[in-house]
């Protein structure tokens, strides 16, 4: 079976900045493929090149078997795009926006109006269909933008940071909608800097950092090496200087890190002796607030593979919006 998306040696430079540095990957038909990386890693530039909004400096790519360098607009009818910002027409109603987007793909009036009603209904926006897009909340705008991206029922959907900047409830709804689209057979290329989102939704993930793909694998394979690890997070009021070194010399076989201020992370191949570690800290003068066993996650893999500290991604989350 032909890959839905096939990319080889794709490069893009903006002046001195190498935004995408020769990436190669493929997305299989029906797959939900995640493109995970921090802001400025090259995710949006990659999507722009794949969807025809930017020209690569070099490399090749095909969508649905169509060589997009030879025929840049040849695959446009196969794809749907949901950009990182809701970019529908503010002066049109939700219904008119969807209907207009359908018309851009040649849908006839009766067909596109029926489809618009169906989508408004299934996205929980039926009551707001006649309202102007400019009056929608951020979450509603995001949902309508996704609906617009699938108006023409594309086989391949590009989703750029779909939950950035929206509240927790809306983000949940959007994730459920993405999962539903995938269950119905749509191939999805999802870019995100939310690690949990990628872990929850994607079958395969590529980690992209500074324009380079550093690892591509299934979520299962990525998690395999760390599933046997035991991790404990201990939160204190404050930590004395050198405490990490003191812990390491007292508890052989345990690895200690300080992922955040006032937090100690203890990691081992066997269960972490929480009691003795907490007692040690208290005897050293620390006020322990909480000790929690943590299930190792994709975040740990990301940190290990990319070398980017998880708190760098965490701060992006805080700046980016609700979860």
């Amino acid at each position, binding site marked *: 079976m032909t890959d839905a998306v096939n990319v080889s040696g794709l490069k893009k430079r903006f002046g001195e900045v190498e935004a995408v540095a020769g990436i190669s990957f493929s997305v299989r038909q029906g797959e939900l493929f995640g493109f995970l990386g921090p802001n400025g890693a090259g995710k949006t530039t990659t999507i722009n090149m794949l*969807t*025809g*909004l*930017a*020209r690569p400096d070099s490399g090749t790519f095909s969508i649905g078997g169509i060589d997009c360098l030879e025929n840049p*607009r040849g695959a*446009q*009818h196969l*794809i749907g*795009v949901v*950009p990182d*910002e809701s*970019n*529908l*027409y*503010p*002066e*049109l109603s939700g219904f008119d926006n969807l209907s*207009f*987007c359908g*018309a*851009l*793909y*040649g*849908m*006839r009036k009766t067909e596109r109006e029926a489809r618009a009603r169906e989508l408004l209904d299934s996205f929980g926006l039926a009551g707001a269909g006649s309202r102007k897009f400019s009056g929608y909340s951020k979450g509603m705008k995001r949902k309508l933008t996704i609906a*617009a991206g699938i108006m023409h029922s594309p086989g391949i959907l590009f989703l750029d940071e779909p939950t950035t900047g929206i509240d927790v409830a809306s983000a949940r709804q959007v994730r459920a909608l993405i999962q539903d689209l995938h269950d119905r057979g749509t191939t999805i290329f999802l870019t995100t800097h939310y690690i949990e989102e990628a872990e929850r939704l994607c079958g395969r993930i590529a980690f992209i950092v500074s324009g380079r793909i550093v690892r591509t694998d299934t979520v299962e394979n990525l998690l395999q090496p760390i599933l046997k690890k035991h991790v404990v997070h201990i939160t204190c009021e404050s930590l004395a200087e050198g405490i990490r070194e003191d812990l390491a010399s007292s508890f052989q076989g345990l690895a200690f890190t300080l992922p955040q201020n006032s937090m100690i992370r203890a990691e081992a191949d066997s269960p972490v002796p929480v009691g003795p570690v907490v007692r040690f800290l208290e005897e050293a003068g620390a006020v322990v607030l909480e000790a929690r066993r943590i299930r190792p996650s994709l975040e740990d893999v990301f940190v290990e593979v990319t070398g980017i500290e998880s708190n760098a991604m965490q701060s992006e989350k805080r700046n980016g919006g609700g979860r």
Partner: protein
Amino acid sequence: MNTLTAFWNIFVKDMRTYYLKPPNISWGLIFPLAWTGMFFLKSGSGLESIPSLLPGLVAISILFGTTSMLSVTVTFEKKNRSFERLLLAPISLKSLMLAKTGGAIVFGVVNAFIPVIMAAFFADISQLRLIVFLPAVFFIAVASTFLGLFIAVSVSEVFEAQTFSNFFRFPMIFLCGLFFPISRLPMLLRPVSYALPLTYGADMLHGSIGGGNAMPLLLDLALLILFCAALFAASLWNIKRKWIA
């Protein structure tokens, strides 16, 4: 068929969203009226001067009607990124931009008839040769619209589009022979006049009323069409270079 559906819907959306809005329609009516009044007051002449003023008024109405809206709407859509939706659609860039400019062309043509209708109430304009007037109006509208498009794709902010438009529009009022012949301009400025598309459109309009054209009408038409093609090609090239970079 797909391209036709997309083309028609882009055109209709723009007409509904931008051109048929009350402020825009009132601008289309007030603007030619204000210019007519200004020239009457300035010249101190009577109603018999209306036919000689009409070509200039028609040209101004088209020029301002087309450029003021298109350059702003395209820049606005580019700025809020809704223009990306159009760029992602499976239609050629040429069809897309023709659809996008269609509304402005129609608006310009409609604007051209406002001074004509008003003039018909006050003066005898029976000498108007429609066979010359209609193509002149249409191609002035096309050239002005494509000039607006060229401006829109050359700037990134809405206010820049307005400033840049005026940079072209106001000199054209005086340099293109709308109200006095190019032969009365200083020698140094004449080459500039001949480099502007409105010069040929205005000459055709003068030719359509009382045969006051300075150049052969077919040459005017050919050069006007050439300007239209060049401005459209330059705009497409600019879009590819700047917006699909």
